[in-house]
C-alpha cells in the first residue's frame, strides 16, 4: 500500500519537514511573546475596529505572523463583503457615513 501511496504522491511528510514546520510555528510565538490566545483577542479587537469603517466577514479573517530573517511580519487577511464606506477625512466622515447608512439603509 505504501508503494501505491508513493506512486500517487500521497506521501506522508518526512519527520524532518514536520520538525521544521513545528519549529517555525513555535518560534513565531516565542519571538514576539504572544500566545495563540492573545492573538485571538487581538484579532477580535481588530475586527471591531475595522468594522467601524468597512463591512467585513469576521469568520473569514486570518491573522498570521511570518518571518523573514529575524524580522517578524504581521499579516491580516480580511475579506470585505459590503461596499466600502468612504472615510477619506477621518473618523467624523466615517461616523456620518455610517449613521447615514443606518438611517437610509442604502449601504
Amino acid at each position, binding site marked *: 500500500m505504501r508503494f501505491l501511496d*508513493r506512486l500517487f504522491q500521497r506521501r506522508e511528510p518526512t519527520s524532518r519537514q514536520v520538525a521544521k514546520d513545528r519549529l517555525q510555528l513555535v*518560534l513565531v510565538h516565542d519571538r514576539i511573546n504572544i500566545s495563540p490566545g492573545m492573538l485571538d483577542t487581538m484579532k477580535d479587537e481588530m475586527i471591531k475596529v475595522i468594522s467601524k469603517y468597512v463591512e467585513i466577514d469576521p469568520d473569514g479573517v486570518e491573522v498570521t505572523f511570518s518571518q523573514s530573517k*529575524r524580522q517578524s511580519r504581521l499579516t491580516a487577511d480580511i475579506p470585505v463583503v459590503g461596499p466600502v464606506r468612504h472615510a477619506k477625512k477621518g473618523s467624523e466622515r466615517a461616523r456620518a457615513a455610517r449613521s447615514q447608512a443606518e438611517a437610509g439603509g442604502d449601504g
Partner: protein
Amino acid sequence: MGATVVTVTSGKGGVGKTTVTANLAVALALLGQRVLAVDTDIGLRNLDVVLGLENRIVYDLVDVVEGRCRMRQALIRDKRLSELFLLPAAQTRDKSAVNPEQMVKLCAQLRPEFDFVFVDSPAGIEQGYRNAVAPADKVLIVTTPEVSAVRDADRIVGLVESEGKGPAKLIINRLNPAMVRREEMLSTVDVVEILAIDLIGVIPEDPAVIVSTNRGNPVSLDGRSPSGQAFRNIAGRLMGQDIPIMPIKESASMLDRLSRFFRG
C-alpha cells in the same frame, strides 16, 4: 592588543558546549595560539575532565574572584600543549558566587596574557549565562539538529542580540549526515534558515568524541577523525582563515530515492 574573549553557550544543556569549548581551545593551541579555557559552570564543572586536567586543580575561578589566590596560581597548564591553560569552576559553590561585573574584570585582567580566552557557559538563561556572556567579544551558540535544542538556541540568539553582543555565530553539533539524507533529521540549511544567523561550523556525529572524552584527550588533538577535522576548521575560521564549511552531503542521491521508493 589582547585576547579575543569567545563565549560558548546554548540555552539547552547537553548539546556539547563543553566539548566544543575544549576542542576549539585545543585546536587553536595547536595552531600556535596562546589559549585559556574558563569554566563558568560553577557547581557543575566539567571542562576539567573533558580536557583531562581534573587531577591538577588547586584553586578555581571563585578563589580568584574572592581574592584567595593570585590569578597565576589558579591557571592550570595543559600537559600536552604548553600554550593551553584552564581556569576551572568551583565545584562546591553556585552561580551567584560570581557576578557579570566580576567576570568582565577578570577577563580584562586575562586579555594581555592570551590570544584567545574561551568562556564555557552553563546551560540556561539565568545568572550563569549572564556571567559567561558579559565579557564576550564573540558569542558562539551551539545547537544540535533537534527541535528542543534549536528552540532554545533561538532564545539565546535573541538574548545575545538584545545585550548588544550579537550577531552570534552558530555551531551545529552532532549532525548525522545519513539521517539527514533519509530526511529524518533537520539539515544544516534548515537550522540556519530557522535561526537566521551566520554558521561558523558543523560537527558531524562521531563516536570518536565519546572515546576521546573517556580518555580526557579532546578529539581535535587527532585531526584524522571527522569531528576533529571539523573543530580544527572552526578554529581556523576564528583566526580569520577562509575555510569553507565542511561539505556534508545532504540531498538524497538518485539511488537512495529509488531504493526507498521500492522499499515503501
